[in-house]
């Protein structure tokens, strides 16, 4: 079984996000980069499937800058077998990314293509279903449980107030959600081994984007919020203000 896992290099979730003076992006100075946390579930799932079956190849694929080699090495240290870096600054436009990944994937032979459910920088949640659509493959997103059998997979996905089951014939695309597994930490042996695993770099030219980032801004800071009072005595006043002033009751 061949499994390809897409991983993205993103700022750590604890990053203080500051928009640059020109409003065109975020200030990346001092930012610590990590493997997108949702992608770790995808990498872990791929490795577990390979381990359970006792055969197969796990390839990590990333569209990112040269520095994204670090995140691919992380995936290799967790247990992926080889890696491919499509070198380009990833745009915010989901369709551009999906097209680029699909172009690479078209010529590859795989049974399962895994992604995290969303990247925590652009929060697009677009690329997995887009790649599936472009390649004409079945797809399940936000998956918390995955059963892979010969030639097919059954995925359980989270929806409002419940779940739905999705049947997929392989090859298929799945995006993973927290709850699917517990991603392992790479141990020293893994980290050492990762240094020697094959990692191919290819420069790519991105197509013109279908959306345009016009500007960025930070959320309005704070509120003119106020402390209504202290202790239970303040409750009637709070209720009155919610009713008369905020009109939410």
């Amino acid at each position, binding site marked *: 079984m061949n499994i390809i896992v897409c991983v993205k290099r993103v700022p750590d979730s604890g990053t203080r996000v500051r928009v640059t003076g020109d409003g065109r992006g975020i200030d990346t100075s001092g930012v610590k980069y990590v493997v997108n946390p949702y992608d770790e579930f995808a990498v872990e799932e791929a490795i577990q499937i390979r381990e359970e079956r006792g055969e197969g190849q796990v390839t990590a694929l990333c569209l990112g800058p040269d520095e994204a080699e670090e995140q691919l090495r992380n995936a290799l240290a967790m247990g992926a077998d080889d890696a491919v870096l499509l070198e380009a600054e990833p745009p915010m436009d*989901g369709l551009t990314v999906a097209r680029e990944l699909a172009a690479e994937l078209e010529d590859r032979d795989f049974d399962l293509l895994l992604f995290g459910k969303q990247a925590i920088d652009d929060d*697009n949640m677009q690329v997995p279903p887009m790649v599936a659509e472009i390649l004409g493959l079945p*797809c399940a997103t936000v998956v918390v449980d995955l059963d892979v059998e010969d030639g097919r997979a059954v995925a359980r996905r989270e929806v409002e107030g419940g779940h739905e089951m999705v049947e997929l014939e392989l090859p298929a695309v799945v995006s993973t959600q927290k709850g699917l597994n517990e991603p392992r930490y790479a141990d020293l042996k893994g980290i050492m081994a990762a240094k020697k695993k094959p990692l191919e770099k290819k420069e790519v030219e991105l197509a013109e984007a279908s959306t345009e980032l016009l500007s960025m801004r930070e959320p309005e800071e704070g509120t003119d919020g106020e402390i209504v009072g202290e202790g239970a005595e303040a409750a009637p006043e709070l209720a009155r203000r919610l009713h008369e002033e905020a009109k939410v009751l």
Partner: protein
Amino acid sequence: MSDVLAYAELRGSQLRGVARETVTGARRLADELGGDVHVVSVGPPGSGEEVASLADYGADRIFTAEDGEFGAYHPDALVRAFQYLADQEEYAAILFPASARGKDLAPRVAARLGRGLATEITDLEVEDGEPVVTRPTYADKAYARVGFTESPALMSIRPNVFIPEESQGSGEHEELEVDADPVRTRVSPVETSEEGKLDVAEASQVVSGGRGMQGPDNWSLLEDLVDALGPGTALGASRAVVDAGWRPHAEQVGQTGKVVSPNLYVAVGISGAIQHLAGMRTSNVIVAINKDPEAPIFDVADYGIIGDLFEVVPELTEEIRKIRGDGG
């Protein structure tokens, strides 16, 4: 080219609340562009009737496809329906709800049409005759204004941001033929975890509890408050309490949980860590109850009470009951 197409999301044959929000967003956009609102649904036999009621929210043309195979989510048929309509009509924009299904479907349609998509928008304008949207990025820590290079512009709208507004559309109902086959992705009907339980992401009022609640047995305190606030209210939770196993992950609000934007958000015993704020800061009115006056939740709260939640919450519940006139 000024018409706008909206996706009417169904669960079974029931119209979901977000469908009215999507049509309201579409109406706003169509009014500014001087166009009509079209609505499309793909559902089981009989579902078209309810979808037709969206005329009351401004739908001018309503396309409904019915088939026994459409009782559950059917992404392949939906993509075919959108492609058919986009080929027939020239749309300025296509709107989806940013629901679980909407976020699964919209990218498929975008890729099929080869058009750009903006996810989970919180605002919508027209500039030089073109749609321009605002959407959160970096877990709501930065907002992006996004334009589109070609029409139709595809977008999914964050639940609870476009509050449904009644507006009479001409409501012409047309049946649409959509093939159920071939099926690439086969989805079974939704299994609800608790019958009719409202999801925190779609509630219009949310009461969230944090570690300050001290244990799962104390949640009846918050359930009473939810009850007092009436229909449309759901429970939420911080990650600390989900990790402790006090509450299910489905209730978690924040960066690794759900993003909520209710009319009222009450944070009880929640410190307000940046990852929690990421999931609720766009709420309309935020109330914080915390014994620590330095808790960062007070920085985003519109109203706060400093005090012991075990004393404040029952009193607040009581007062709200009085105001809402049910009991007390």
